[in-house]
């Protein structure tokens, strides 16, 4: 039997192109968003007195007294983090939609067919794959522009 050499994973293999980045990004952003979800629901529920102390005092005490209190210059660290979460969310959501269209509905993938040798299985259309990925990038850029205005617009005097 032929001896096969084991090749250990190399980062260079992963960091090759947009595809590889999107795989890693989907998982890292998913993890960050999942942890954020837990903190966000607990914090906002507390700020609303868990529905039993729905007052301005309670809201301001938690939101502005704790979460948005630390500032770097005029910028609230809390608002800055929300901005970053928004950016993670939109890349995750746009790329997630791409993955759903491909992995669940098979859009942009060749029809499954019997595997024959050699290489008779059609490969995914490169053009369709590129269109998908550029759509993700464009949605992200548009969102970042809107979100920057939304969070920092007043501060920057726009």
């Amino acid at each position, binding site marked *: 039997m032929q001896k096969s050499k084991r090749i250990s994973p190399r980062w260079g293999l992963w960091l090759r192109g947009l595809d590889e980045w999107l795989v890693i990004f989907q998982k890292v952003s998913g*993890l960050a968003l999942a942890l954020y979800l*837990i903190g966000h629901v607990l914090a906002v529920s507390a700020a609303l007195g868990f529905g039993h102390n729905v007052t301005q005092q309670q809201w301001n005490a938690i939101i502005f007294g704790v979460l948005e209190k630390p500032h770097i210059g005029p910028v609230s660290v809390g608002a800055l983090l929300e901005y970053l979460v928004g950016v993670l*969310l939109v890349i995750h959501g746009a790329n997630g939609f791409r993955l*759903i269209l491909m992995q*669940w509905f098979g859009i942009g993938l060749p029809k499954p067919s019997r595997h024959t040798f050699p290489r008779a299985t059609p490969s995914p259309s490169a053009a369709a794959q590129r269109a998908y990925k550029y759509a993700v990038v464009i949605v992200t850029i548009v969102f970042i522009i809107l979100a920057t205005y939304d969070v920092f617009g007043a501060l920057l005097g726009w």
Partner: protein
Amino acid sequence: MMVAKSTLMKWHYITGLIMIVVVGIHIAYRWPSYDASVSWPAVESQIGMAWYDIVLLIIIYAASYHAMNGLRTIMLELFHGGKAFTTFVDVLVIALGLLVVIVGTYTVVSIIPL
């Protein structure tokens, strides 16, 4: 109770699609000024609308399932344990998911003007 991985992923995709709509609404309400949208008068008017509270409930359920199933996938991919480890991860994500669902539901249901 065993649930097929393909069933778990089908629901991962369904909740993802649902979230594009409901999380989209939640984010759209931060427009045109994030700061103004989280000030008390704005928040009071947002939670005072029954339909918006229902959107919040849908986010809580869809996001908890999606996030906890995702967390489970990530942990099982990163650490290759045996059956006991899988059970541990299952219990952990179900507990975290229930925490979010119970606290979130309790708060929103106490507020919703119905």
